């Protein structure tokens, strides 16, 4: 809390206290507060640190001067999947729920970059037509688009951009960047950033996809769509998934082992559901991996549906292990949710 005092001395009061989290919707979740005194700053800081925003506790706070400004704007460069193009989105009003507001300006960005004329047109359509007001905004737009393109961001956003009352330069009060993970091989310096979740980072290294969820049934399968649909089956049956774990195509035994060992360490996972439809993935490789992990150390109960090529052999390999086998996905789901 001394840090909060120091920070409010440094930026001056009134100030704004903001939770630093990786998800959006922070304002709506109560993660932003305006404070007028040091006592208020300490109170709000403690309150915000106690919040859970998008399943995450704020790791840090941003305390900044509460500026008096004429207007707040929203600027972003993001991928528009429907148009199959990056687009600039600008709106006269920043803050929360920008996506839901009318009066936005949207312009496609060519693969080669945003032309200055388009940036000028965006400013004009926002009603900023005089040269003195337009120049800094055009400059920021062009720089934001260049950042997005050169660093290969999926999203580069300034929200809000404060245009102050004194006619000075606009100030970015907050910003957010989502990188294209698949382009990190061209940006080794960005690849050094820590993963959002240490277990997710570990999974990525081992070559499978893992997303932590807040239920108690770990859901493991081969193929993103199959695991997604298994999550749906589990929650339709009244269960709550503890994670999404996609082993990926053509799963080798060592990857299956690494995945199950990670699930074993997942504190909220009380039961494990394994749903495999073998094709290119060999069901016998999966069975060998599962067998090795469940036999080497105690593990949560494992419920499995293993179907596809060589399934008889795979099932035979798991006989005599604690793994409970079911002939179909719905039957395995019913059993794991019921905890039978």
């Amino acid at each position, binding site marked *: 809390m001394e840090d909060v005092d120091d920070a409010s001395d440094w930026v001056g009061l009134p100030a704004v206290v903001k939770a630093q989290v990786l998800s959006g919707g922070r304002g709506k979740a109560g993660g932003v507060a305006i404070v007028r005194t040091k006592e208020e700053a300490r109170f709000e800081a403690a309150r915000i640190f106690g919040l859970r925003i998008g399943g995450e506790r704020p790791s840090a706070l941003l305390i900044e001067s509460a500026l008096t400004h004429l207007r707040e704007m929203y600027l972003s460069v993001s991928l528009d*999947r429907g148009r199959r193009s990056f687009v600039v989105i600008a709106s006269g009003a920043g803050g929360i729920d920008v996506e839901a507001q009318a009066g936005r300006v949207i312009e496609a960005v060519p693969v080669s970059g945003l032309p200055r004329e388009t940036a000028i047109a965006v400013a004009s359509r926002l009603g900023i037509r005089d040269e003195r007001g337009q120049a800094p905004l055009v400059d920021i737009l062009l720089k934001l688009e260049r950042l997005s393109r050169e660093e290969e961001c999926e999203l580069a956003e300034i929200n809000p951009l404060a245009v102050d009352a004194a006619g000075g330069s606009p100030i970015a009060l907050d910003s957010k960047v989502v990188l294209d*993970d698949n382009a990190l091989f061209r940006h080794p310096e960005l690849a050094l950033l820590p993963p959002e979740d240490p277990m997710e980072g570990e999974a990525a290294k081992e070559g499978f*996809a893992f997303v932590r969820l807040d239920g108690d049934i770990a859901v493991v399968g081969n*193929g*993103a*769509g199959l695991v*997604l649909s298994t999550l*749906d089956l589990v929650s339709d049956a009244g269960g709550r998934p503890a994670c*999404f774990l996609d082993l990926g195509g053509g799963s080798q035994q060592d990857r299956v082992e690494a995945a199950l060992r990670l699930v074993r360490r997942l504190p909220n996972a009380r039961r494990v559901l394994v749903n495999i*439809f073998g094709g290119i993935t060999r069901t016998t490789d999966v069975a060998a991996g599962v067998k090795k992990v469940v036999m080497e150390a105690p593990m949560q109960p494992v419920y499995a549906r293993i179907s596809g090529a060589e399934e008889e052999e795979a099932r035979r390999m798991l006989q005599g292990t604690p793994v409970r086998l079911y002939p179909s996905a719905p039957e395995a789901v019913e059993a794991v949710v019921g905890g039978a």
Partner: protein
Amino acid sequence: MNSSGIMLPKEGEPVIVQGITGRYGSLHTKLMLQYGTNVAAGVTPGKAGERVEGVPVYDRVADAVEKTGSRCSILFVPAPFFYSAAEEAMQAGVKLLVAITERVPIRDTLKMIALAERHGATVVGPNTPGLIVPARKVKLGIMPASSFRPGRLALFSRSGTLMYEIANQLSTHGFGQCVAVGIGGDPINGTTITDFFDWARDFEGADAVVAVGEIGGDAEEILAKHIVETGFSKPVFAYIAGRAAPEEKRMGHAGAIIYGGYGTAESKISALKDAGAHVGMTPMEIPLLVERYLRK
């Protein structure tokens, strides 16, 4: 080729495998040959003169095209080299590219799409299991052949394993496929599901379409609008995965992510239902719906 501009490979169509000497490239060359696909040539720079499963390897796509007359290529090239491999194929006159490669940067995909438009080429993927035409014994992909049977359903899917699982259940229930295509799990696909519906509308061998979608983006919403606007008259069956998925989390596929309420399964399901599609709540329900509405 029909009015959609999409050209499906014919029986015996010569095919090039780019990245044939890699682990996946060589494994799937073997499996595609087993299925009956005419893999006529492979390409890996610096490996000219080698053979993989008896298939001759060339340094350049242009050489492979010259020797075989092929206009179809399947790419197993690693992501960092994917864009230049696709560009090389298009410049050599390849008109159908099936991009198995995963983890292609979005901006490379966008550049590739612009290039494909200039060359009049069709790209399936990236991050796709490929396509299969059972009646023509053509498999340009990594899907397990055993799930698919010749028939009269067109199956389009954003997910690989779900496509195999649903195809397998359809086949078991006596509904074969005239084609099954993986659209790709990325946020941007070379050929959209809407493009494939245009193909299916004009293809006489397709009685109905099965669409398998998932959370993320608005491809299914765009498709639903297209179905209504074009008066698409063949029955449509659909399944959308990810009703239980949280927001702002990438669920395995680069494209499977909900942002601020955009890309939810609910939005896709209601759009498709409004467009008259029969939407199943589980993959297991799809063959039952097909049975109910197609065998009347």
